[in-house]
């Protein structure tokens, strides 16, 4: 038999029940859905009829509850499932990950200040914003932060390197540029470079895509990299711990640079060997200046090298030095030699002069070599190398035609590159494949092609091009640049010991990038074949991680790479926002003038200005909503942040259950006669309550939404949605008459010149001291009471709400500065779901049913489950407290009679 009781709901009723039980030695599990206990009472400014400060009287109870050794407060938790019977229930409680260690967090709030995400603060009825890491209110219990993380943003999810794109977009929006660059660098060592050349799968994932256009995520990355560097803030990170181990990195392309940088940050002595004269690999040799200016690349590479990385150029492993020697001299070797060998077309005539292979062509142009090309150039292929070759040839004054065997839709090149090529005047011959290259006098005269048609999808999922018999045609050209594919130049490595795949790439364990030679790792294009820079960065990062492990003497057994976090969908966001996402136009990057594009190698797309970047970053819809920017973890003194925290299911075994889930505030927008959300100066009572609270969104000032002025003349309209069968709430909420009176009194307390009028049906001031309170409101606070229904219109000029009411059957109107609506209090949204789980009946209005409401109020229709507070029907605070104690008594009786307690 169990001795414990579970209380669901940490409002005042639940707190009281828990304290009563705990004080008599019964163990209590208090399950609260929100990150803090306190419930609705915590939102109130004062309490009638004494006008005591609500939180001042509640907070000690919250603290007592949390500190009580017999109460296990489980915040941010929900009941998942229940079985069993009175005396012996089994309850599964979902303890949602708050990503902050409740024990370690001391509530100092340092993290709130650095979080770049802003969300409506539910506690303040959305009247101000809160960060994604937050405590709902100052006096929250526990005063431990919670990260509002519903999942991973699709942009971050799609990044092959696993960079939190939402993170840096959020940081940029918050003008935390340096932090944004730091975040990017933790995954992508070259932010400015990557922002320019990445094929940005992040943008394809963006949830804005289906609203208007994706956020320009890559462009923002380019901006922030440049901006921070230009501001002189891009200083190297101090190395905390020097290590004696040495690592050789072969190849200074993106994979090699990433690995070298990571290892250097860890304090290892890193030496890079680069076969060419410049760093960057394909970034230098394969990407023309008009996409990636060399000075940007140089600056970013220099930043990396400044972390104590040595680099030697013109050293080819296999030629200038042997892998075996590296192995001897260094504790680990990372091979990242890339894929620089152009693959041939395999058609007759390919060896005629004037056939220049794409990568070689680009390399030579990059090397400032004088490359001769003709007037009419055919570029073969549809990838980025083909586009780069075509656009480069165009800039050299040639007429360029791209020949591609599928259609534009299947082209693997980045859309922007294709668009750029088209804009600049590159011609396209789709569904065509070279058959032979024709020449005369050792010079090319034409290229013969065959027409293709699209067949069944091949392994890549793209339709297979099938030649159409007899459709051969010729294009007159004098230069042919095949740019179909590249492969790693493994022969150059000169090692017979390294295992190689059948595709002539280096063979590695994909989990840790180790080769068959211990201590030698490999990654990047040399392993994957030609791929994107961002994938190469990812490989470099991974290699560095496992090289570090191996140098630490740890196991390099691949860690499971589970990626099972929920990816946020547009529907998730709409549900959170309670509606549609407002449209907002994507900020376009400015282009240099068209004529310059055809003739110069100047960068085509201008990087965002700061203003453009801020505007574009503001389009982000905070999918996470936590952006996973890691700012909080960096700021946290006690190291309480734990991003790896997982939801937990805890099984409880209570003998009795007390349900005290409270109420929600009905949204009166649909009752258009009150003008809520239509007229700015119409408020709900709960909004007013937050405004008038000193720690609320307006710091205790009542201000008009329209102009920020203090309203001098206020109207309070009662029974908005309640006592009204048409909207399904024929009942009276029991508390609003007194609540409105209190709010009217407080208006006068705050502003001597404030006058309030309350429009009511019946002034239900029917408990201890209540009638006296009303009389005091009239005599001491000048509150007027008018017995009438009322609706609201607006004086459009002044934004003053106009109340329409009737006295003695005559319709009257009166203009006010603001109107406060006493909206219906309804059961919590998830009551139906909870009732289903618990097997409890609800009344027709959705409150939990207490079958014997006369002699055994609070006893549910199931033995062992008891009700307290507003969830069982309208009740004010003292009634809720009494019901909390009452439910505790009933639970204690159950335990006493089931052998426990």
């Amino acid at each position, binding site marked *: 038999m169990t001795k414990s009781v579970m209380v669901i709901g940490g409002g005042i009723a639940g707190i009281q029940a828990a304290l009563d039980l705990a004080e008599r030695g019964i163990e209590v599990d208090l399950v609260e859905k929100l990150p803090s206990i306190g419930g609705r009472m915590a939102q109130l400014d004062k309490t009638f009829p004494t006008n005591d400060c609500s939180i001042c009287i509640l*907070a000690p109870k919250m*603290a007592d509850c949390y500190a009580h050794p017999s109460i296990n407060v489980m915040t941010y938790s929900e009941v998942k499932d229940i079985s069993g019977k009175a005396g012996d229930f089994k309850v599964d409680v979902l303890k949602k990950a708050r990503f902050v260690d409740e024990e370690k967090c001391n509530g100092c709030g*340092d993290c709130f200040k650095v979080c770049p995400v802003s969300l409506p603060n539910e506690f303040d009825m959305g009247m101000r914003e809160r960060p994604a890491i937050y405590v709902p209110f100052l006096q929250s219990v526990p005063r431990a932060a919670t990260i509002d993380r519903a999942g991973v943003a699709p942009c971050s999810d799609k990044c092959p390197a696993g960079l939190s794109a939402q993170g840096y977009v959020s940081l940029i929006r918050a003008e935390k540029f340096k932090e944004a660059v730091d975040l990017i660098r933790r995954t992508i060592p070259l932010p400015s470079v990557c922002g320019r050349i990445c094929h940005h799968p992040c943008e394809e994932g963006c949830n804005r895509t289906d609203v208007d256009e994706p956020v320009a995520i890559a462009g923002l990355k380019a901006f922030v990299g440049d901006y921070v560097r230009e501001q002189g803030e891009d200083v190297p990170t101090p190395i905390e711990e020097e290590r004696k181990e040495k690592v050789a990195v072969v190849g200074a392309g993106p994979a090699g640079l990433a690995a070298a940088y990571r290892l250097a940050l860890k304090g290892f002595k890193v030496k890079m060997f680069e076969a060419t004269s410049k760093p960057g690999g394909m970034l230098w040799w394969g990407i023309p200046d008009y996409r990636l200016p060399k000075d940007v690349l140089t600056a970013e590479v220099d930043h990396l090298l400044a972390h104590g990385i040595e680099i030697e150029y013109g050293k080819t492993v296999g030629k200038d030095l042997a892998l075996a020697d590296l192995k001897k001299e260094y504790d680990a070797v990372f091979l990242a030699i890339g894929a620089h060998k152009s693959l041939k077309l395999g058609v007759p005539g390919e060896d005629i002069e004037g056939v220049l292979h794409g990568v070689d062509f680009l390399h030579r142009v990059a090397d400032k070599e004088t490359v001769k090309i003709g007037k009419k150039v055919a570029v073969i292929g549809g990838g980025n190398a083909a586009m780069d070759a075509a656009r480069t040839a165009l800039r050299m004054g040639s007429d360029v035609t791209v020949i591609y065997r599928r259609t534009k839709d299947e082209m693997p090149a980045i859309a922007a590159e294709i668009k750029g090529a088209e804009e600049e005047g590159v011609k396209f011959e789709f569904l065509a494949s070279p058959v032979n290259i024709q020449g005369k006098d050792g010079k090319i005269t034409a290229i013969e092609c065959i027409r293709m048609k699209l067949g069944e999808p091949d392994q890549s999922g793209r339709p297979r091009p099938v030649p159409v018999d007899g459709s051969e045609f010729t294009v007159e050209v004098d230069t042919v640049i095949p740019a179909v594919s590249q492969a790693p130049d493994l022969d150059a490595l000169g090692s017979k010991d390294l295992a190689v795949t059948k595709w002539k790439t280096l063979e590695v364990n994909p989990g840790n990038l180790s080769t068959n030679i211990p201590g030698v790792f490999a990654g990047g294009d040399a392993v994957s074949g030609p791929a994107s820079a961002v994938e190469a960065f990812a490989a470099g990062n991974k290699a560095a991680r496992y090289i570090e492990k191996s140098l630490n003497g740890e196991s390099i057994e691949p860690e499971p790479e589970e990626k099972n976090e929920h990816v946020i969908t547009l529907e998730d966001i709409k549900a959170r926002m309670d509606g549609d996402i407002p449209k907002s136009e994507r900020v376009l990057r400015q282009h240099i003038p068209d004529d310059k594009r055809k003739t110069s190698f100047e960068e085509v797309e201008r990087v965002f200005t700061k203003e453009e970047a801020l505007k574009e970053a503001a389009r982000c819809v905070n999918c996470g909503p936590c952006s996973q920017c890691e700012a909080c973890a960096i700021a946290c003194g006690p190291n309480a942040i734990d991003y790896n925290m997982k939801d937990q299911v805890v099984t409880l075994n209570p003998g009795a259950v007390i349900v005290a889930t409270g109420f929600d505030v009905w949204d009166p927008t649909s009752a258009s006669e009150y003008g809520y959300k239509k007229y700015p100066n119409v408020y709900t009572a709960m909004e007013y309550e937050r405004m008038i609270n000193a720690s609320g969104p307006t710091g205790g000032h009542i201000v008009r939404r329209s102009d920020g002025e203090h309203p001098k003349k206020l109207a309070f309209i009662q029974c908005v949605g309640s006592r009204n069968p048409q909207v399904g709430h024929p009942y*009276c909420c029991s508390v609003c008459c007194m609540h409105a009176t209190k709010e009217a009194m407080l208006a006068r307390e705050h502003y001597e010149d404030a006058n309030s009028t309350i429009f009511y049906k019946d002034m239900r001031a029917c408990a*201890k001291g209540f009638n006296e309170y009303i*009389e005091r409101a009239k005599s001491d606070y000048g509150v007027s009471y008018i017995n009438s229904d009322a609706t609201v219109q607006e004086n459009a000029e002044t934004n003053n709400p106009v109340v329409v009411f009737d006295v003695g059957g005559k319709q009257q109107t009166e203009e006010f500065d603001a109107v406060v609506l006493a909206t219906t209090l309804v059961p919590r949204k998830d009551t139906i779901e909870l009732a289903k789980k618990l097997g409890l009946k609800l009344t027709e209005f959705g409150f939990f049913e207490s079958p014997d409401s006369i002699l055994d109020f609070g006893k549910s229709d199931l033995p062992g489950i008891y009700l307290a507070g507003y969830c069982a029907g309208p009740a004010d605070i003292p009634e809720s407290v009494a019901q909390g104690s009452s439910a505790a*008594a009933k639970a204690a009786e159950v335990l006493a009679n089931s052998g426990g307690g």
Partner: protein
Amino acid sequence: MPENTSTEKEKPRIGVFICHCGSNIGGFVDVKAVTEYASTLPDVAYAADNLYTCAEDGLNNIKDSIKEHNLDRVIVSSCTPRTHAPLFQRTCEAAGVNKYMFTFVNIREHCSWVHMKEKEKATQKAKDLVRMGVARARFLEPQEETKVDVTPTALVVGGGVSGMTAALSLANMGFPVHLVEKDEELGGFVKNLHGLMMTTKSANETIKPLIDKVNAHKNITQHLNSHVASVEGFIGNYDISIGGDGAEAKEVKVGTIIVATGAVPLVPEGLFGYKEHPNVITSTEFEELCNKKELPKLKSVAFIQCVGARGQKVSYCSRVCCNVAIKSAINIAENRDNMLGVTEEKAAETGEVVEEPAAEKKAEEEGSDRRRRRRGRGRGDEDEAGEEAAPSSGVEVTVFNRDVMSYGVEHELEFNKAREKRVKFVRYLPDNLPKVSVKDGKLEVGYFHETLKMERTMPVDLVILSTPLVAQPDAATLSQLLKVPLGQDGFFQEAHVKLRPVDFATDGVYVCGTCRGPADISEAVSQAAAAASRASIPLANGFVQAEALTSIVDETKCTGCGTCVETCPYSALRKNEEGITEVIVAACKGCGCCGATCPEGAITMTHYTDQQLLAEAKAALEEV
């Protein structure tokens, strides 16, 4: 020489731990400077600053320093004791320092957060606060907390629905209960009623199961025809003398007491023709007539609400009367239980309904009728019912009211139902009360029609006056016996109007039902179970633990004047046999009222001694 050694030994060794609280304090107060300053203060053996004192390393720092520097008292200068004192006290105890040798200095809420714009002054104030804390800490003394045994038996005073419910709950938990009822049978006020709200069952039918359970429960000892004659003792240990009619007083020992003595209806002497005409009766009398089936034959009935209430004889609204009137009005309209009487001679007294002028009717239909219907029940419902349709029983029922207090779900639905049954609700304002008069031997009610703004008259057969519940006449006696307060209306006054609705400020005594103010049965029952919960806590624990924060009486100075006994809000002081005041440690809350009022200065508080407080105050005024 030995004397010196002893002084050396007893010299306090204070550890001061000053917290940065991240940037919360550290951002505005120069914590290093305050720490340095603290180390210069007298008897400070060690001072240190922590980024977060409450974090693991901060707490370890306290523990380690206590050992390393042989500290015997600890000050943490950081945030608020409300949330963090227990944590630091536990840390001290874990390192062998009595928790009363710990003191808190708040330099966050009291300093850094309110002086964010004046950093230098904030630092100076933090120094001042620390100096004050050190000054007090030098005089701290270890304290032992006391436990007092509790007799695991309860006393419930009052055998109405509240008292029975409370007694039954306690009995079900396994505690013996003495249930004292002044009447000869259980049932209280409800047993005299005909029907109840929210049920079609009769009152007696409804409460019979409860009475049966109480009668059958072995843990409940009933004392009928009895009253509490005397009360001695304090929480956990009350000696109660129960007096009976002529019988010898019975002595019982109980640990806790629940007061559930109920209320009585106001007798409306001199109001609305009460006692002047036999057919002007109170709602309670109406219930009795229904029970006896002695109602006159009725064609038209008027209820007048708030008779004597809401600023007349009493200032409050009695909460239940509207809903009682609604219930009765529905019963009449439905002629439920054939309750209407049979006396033929009384039929002659009935008058005729006065037809309303057509013009008035027209005026009624205009205005906001349409909007009101769409919006649900507005006011001015008398218009809606109209005169052409009468309830099915053929009886006109009119409820003259100020506001219809049908709060919540059930009552409001009943209100709606009454109107569906053609019960008319006519509002009157307090400066224009309805007038009950007799014209040509016939009873009539004159009133001011608030919507039409004109005087009107209505002939009626019966006027039912809804009078408020008022305190029991003997409530004052019981309040004196138990030393618990009554509010200005004569109802028992709970400890806190919001958060302690069924507690008294005095530990061990609890309150529920209408003796604390008007309530309907369902509310009274909730309160009763709540009181049972509260009253059972000490019983279940078997002891009460008193914080060692109590007053101490210097017997040599006490003159036995009794001022403190009068002043104590918790009844924690009493005079002993020698006439000298003694403290009931279990009941004392350490509030200090007695110490402040004692003319002889004979009372001090543990942990807040005069010496400690004066030292702190002097330190505050010290020039640095």
